């Protein structure tokens, strides 16, 4: 027997967002492994990790499509569905940026990062992993806020967003240092293009994480 009353209750999009965030976290781990492998001298597993990242990305894509497909026009949520979609888009672009970075490397797999830039790149990668870790807690904490609406919990979420912003700024700094150094190096133009673009793509991971945070901030608006 189907009762109309139950048709009102639908799966919360937050559940999907959380699942998606977990995928981002999982992907970050594989991304980090791939990058470390790339920095190492004789790396054989880079391609494996790149495939893993691509695979996780496509899984996350399926989650994204599922969320989008299950919010009908007249869904009543504590926040506008526009914000949910924007948040999801930014969180998904974090994944895309990770995949893009590895793809970029794979186009020029014979090349290596110059010794004097190795440390800077390692720092940059670490700097973009930090915001992803923050991001994974963001949905969980925000959900808690929408359960209790306590000011304290709101501050917790706002603090995460604040941390995201700070970490993005740090990642930006590392990106700038790399770019500056690259242009002062005695290398061919193609290598310069390659390195600058690589730094920018890695840096954009943190950008998108921060954008996701900004969307969450909009959801918290009273």
């Amino acid at each position, binding site marked *: 027997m189907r*009762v109309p009353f139950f048709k009102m209750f639908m799966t919360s999009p937050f559940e999907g967002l959380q699942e998606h965030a977990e995928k981002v976290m999982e992907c970050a781990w594989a991304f980090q492994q791939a990058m470390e492998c790339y920095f190492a001298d004789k790396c054989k597993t880079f391609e494996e990790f790149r495939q893993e990242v691509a695979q996780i990305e496509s899984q996350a894509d399926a989650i994204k499509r599922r969320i989008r497909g299950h919010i009908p026009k007249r869904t009543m949520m504590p926040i506008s569905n526009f914000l949910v979609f924007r948040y999801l888009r930014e969180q998904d672009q974090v994944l895309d940026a990770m995949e893009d970075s590895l793809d970029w490397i794979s186009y020029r797999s014979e090349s290596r990062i110059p010794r004097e830039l190795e440390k800077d790149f390692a720092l940059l990668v670490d700097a973009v992993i930090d915001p992803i870790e923050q991001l994974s807690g963001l949905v969980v904490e925000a959900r808690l806020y929408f359960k209790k*609406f306590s000011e304290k919990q709101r501050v917790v979420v706002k603090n995460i967003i604040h941390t995201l912003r700070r970490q993005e700024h740090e990642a930006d700094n590392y990106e700038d240092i790399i770019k500056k150094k690259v242009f002062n190096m005695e290398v061919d133009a193609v290598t310069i293009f390659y390195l600058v673009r690589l730094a920018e793509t890695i840096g954009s991971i943190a950008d998108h994480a921060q954008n996701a945070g900004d969307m969450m901030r909009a959801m918290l608006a009273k």
Partner: protein
Amino acid sequence: MPNEYYVLIVGYIFGFYMAWNIGANDVANAMASSVGAKAITIRQAIFLAGILNILGAVFIGSHVTNTIRKGIVSTEVLTDPHLALIGALSALLAAAFWVSFATWKSLPVSTTHSIVGSMIGFGIMAGGFSVINWTKLAAVVMSWVISPVFSIVIAFFMFKIIIKLILSKEDTFIHALKLSPFFIGATFFVVVLSFLFKTPLGKKLALGPYASFLVAFILAVSFGLAGMKALRWFIKKREGGAETIFRRIQVGTACYVALAQGANDVANAIGPLAVIYFLVKTGGVGATVPVPVFLLLFGGIGIACGIGMAGHRVMETMGKKITALSNTRGFCVEFAAATTVLVASKMGLPVSTTHAAVGGVLGVGLARGLEAVNFSIVFKIMLYWVLTVPAAAVTSMVIFKILQFLL
């Protein structure tokens, strides 16, 4: 005339069937949030709903029913007892058919509106369009809109109060416990008041409105405080915060809804049956007929049977479906729905428990209490508001013609 006894038997059967349908469909509205929030088990829900529906029907259900519900149709159509008998029977049959069709197709219709519609159909057949009291009908239509809105408002403010005074606090447990007398008391206040107004029990006590309010208030306060003591006694673990408190309170509100439902909906099933009964026994009928207690009991048992037979399946699906409803939210939904239904039925307005329950959920949703609610149900319900009455009316007309030919 033995013919009339056959009519009475058919009346009993369809009255019971109607009550069964109410039980099978509407129990979900009463107990859904409590079962979904894991305040009670399915078995407990069925047992409580069954008992309390009977209690509500017998003790709070109206003991005097208007021959034609709410005076929408003028009583001049009832001057011919034979015609009135056929009319009451066809109204009952039409409503029962429409409700079972709706159940089959899972359309959000109201049993209350079906019976009103079929009564109109009979009125038109028996006396033409002139017997329909259009202003009364308009008032009834208004009440269908007002009752969900009323429920939305109650649920909205109840949830806002709970956020402001309990959920947003550091220690939700202690705040919930402190305020529990208010929530328990409010429930008791409405229940006691509806006992005191317009029931034989209330008449015997013969309290004036002020005295009734005073009695209800005193009882509410004392029950509220006793409830708090009991909660303090029973709940030792405080990790769950406010939700653990509301889980216990929700057992009470689930009962509240079942009680209100029994009181309100029993008339839908046995209102026309009472008319048939009266016509067969006395041969005539006035503007109102007294409803014998055994008929109320009959209706209550019918509802309880519906709950018992179909309740399990309904509740199993809903237990899985509405996990989103936490105890505080469930409390607001149930409190709003039951209060709306009890107040409206005491004011003599035909309201639907389903719509009141839907209103409660939307109220909590508007207060940002739910992560996702499908709002489109509202438009569907509005569509079936508009459809139910004519559909039941036309069915009633057809059955009336057939019966007139047969009897």
